């Protein structure tokens, strides 16, 4: 475990920083799912259930809740991997403080990634609990939706952090959000099955990590687990994590060690 000792010192910094703001984020992470599940699951869901002729096979809230869980994991991940990374280079310059000590770029990347993943886990755990309170978890398998959401988060934090470390201004995050995060949020099977998309867009949706994360979460909360498909989704997301992590190590080193 000694290889984790150094990254954990980096993790400790983020924990120390988080202690100042945790109240605000804790409240948001409870209120968000309550609002969204109330509005979409119950409000919109009543309409959908009446008019869809049960084409989803389950009440709309059961369908949309795991989608929202996965989409939230993605949103939290993209936020945690954008501004804090840029800030540690441009604003607090904390990465440089860390580099003046025995910590190296690998420790800095890994420690920060562990923290981002922890943030995704905290938010997702609350989300899943709220879903359960709304009656949206139909099976004990549902607990596995949490690691699924965390894995999905890591599939975003690694490449996003790699990219953020190459940027000089946070203006770069606006197009990322507009052209990557928001379209995925809306069209990756979160609110409706991707089979309703035009053929080309349907295939595009299959390529997005969010779709794989949504499918994984939904499979677990609904309880219709297919081991082979679960492995496929997991492998696809892991590919993003591994490639993103290698890329991040490279961009961090290029940026910090000139």
């Amino acid at each position, binding site marked *: 475990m000694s290889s984790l*000792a*150094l990254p954990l*010192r*980096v993790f*400790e*910094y983020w924990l*120390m*920083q988080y202690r*100042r703001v945790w109240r605000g984020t804790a409240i948001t992470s409870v209120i968000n799912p309550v609002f969204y599940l109330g509005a979409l699951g119950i409000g919109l869901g009543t309409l959908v259930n009446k008019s869809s002729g049960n084409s989803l096979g389950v009440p709309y809230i059961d369908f949309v809740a795991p989608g929202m869980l996965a989409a939230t994991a993605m949103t939290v991940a993209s936020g945690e991997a954008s501004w804090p990374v840029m800030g540690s280079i441009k604003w*607090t*310059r*904390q990465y*440089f*403080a*860390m*580099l*003046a*000590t*025995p*910590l*190296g770029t690998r420790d800095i990347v890994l420690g920060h990634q562990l923290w981002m993943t922890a943030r995704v886990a905290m938010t997702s755990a609350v989300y899943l609990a709220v879903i359960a309170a709304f009656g949206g978890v139909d099976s004990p398998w549902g607990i596995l939706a949490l690691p699924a959401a965390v894995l999905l988060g890591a599939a975003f934090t690694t490449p996003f952090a790699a990219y953020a470390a190459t940027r000089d201004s946070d203006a770069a995050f606006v197009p990322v959000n507009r052209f990557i995060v928001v379209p995925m949020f809306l069209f990756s099977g979160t609110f409706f099955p991707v089979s309703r998309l035009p053929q080309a867009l349907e295939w595009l949706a299959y390529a997005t990590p969010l779709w794989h994360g949504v499918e994984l979460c939904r499979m677990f909360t609904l309880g219709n687990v297919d081991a082979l498909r679960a492995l496929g989704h997991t492998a696809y997301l892991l590919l993003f994590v591994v490639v993103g992590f290698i890329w991040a190590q490279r961009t961090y080193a290029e940026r*910090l*060690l*000139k």
Partner: protein
Amino acid sequence: MDAAAQLPLVHARGLVKSFGELVAVDGVDFDVQRGEAFGFLGPNGAGKTSTMRMIGCVSPPSGGTLRILGLDPVTQGAEIRAKLGVVPQQDTLDTELTVRENIIIYGRYFGLPRSDLGKRADELIDFVQLNDRANDKVEPLSGGMKRRLTIARSLVNDPEVLLLDEPTTGLDPQARHTVWDRLFRLKQRGVTQILTTHYMDEAEQLCDRLVVMDRGKIAAEGSPQELIRRYSTREVVELRFRAENRPEEVADELKSRLDGSVRRLEALPDRLLLYTDDGDATATHVHEFDLKPESVLVRRSTLEDVFLHLTGRTLVDD
């Protein structure tokens, strides 16, 4: 003393750092001995910070040899950094955390146990006289206070070598003196210091030995007094003129008339510098001519004069 203690703490031969086409450090040689305060003096862009970053093991050398504490910065960087204290040119403090938290988390980066760090932080805060701000956020602190905090933080691991990159740039005179005072105390305790500066008074105050850097190369090396003796005269007479009086033209006239007593003459846009061994005599002599300078000042030579002599340029462009 064992052999290791006699080796220089930092040893550089033919050290090069280039960024693409730009050669920032162009083959420099220097050795820093244990316990001394060693300075890199030079204008902005001379290659001081690049040299410092290589010593700090955060910038791999492009060529030459560099050993720090007998170790190789490329392969043993973490091991070296564990024994360094770094005061970077630009602050790397988290201004949302408190003074105390900044020191504690920095100590954690070195793997120091949490249980010892509280006491250690308090000692260091006391050393830099920030006791009454210990639990305040860093954000509202003055530039001088932040600098002192950075110095305190750099000492958390009891470093063998302290690297100070432009330690007082941007500080007001009083804050500079407070920082100098703390660095002097550290020197008395035997902490080896390596610093860069473009202030000649700072170099004279703090350095036992220094190298003058210009355009990536070392122009001269020695103690401040040695350098002044070698490259300047004991005293300088400064004649200030209004710009319309054209100091350059006066210079030619003076040169022909002040033979002997003035060893060298430098003409700057607003003033003339007469290098002489007897300032008062030269000043008296100057008054005999009808030059009408705005002011005449006799002063001792400084490193600024050494730099001017070596490079033909002033250190600080004002």
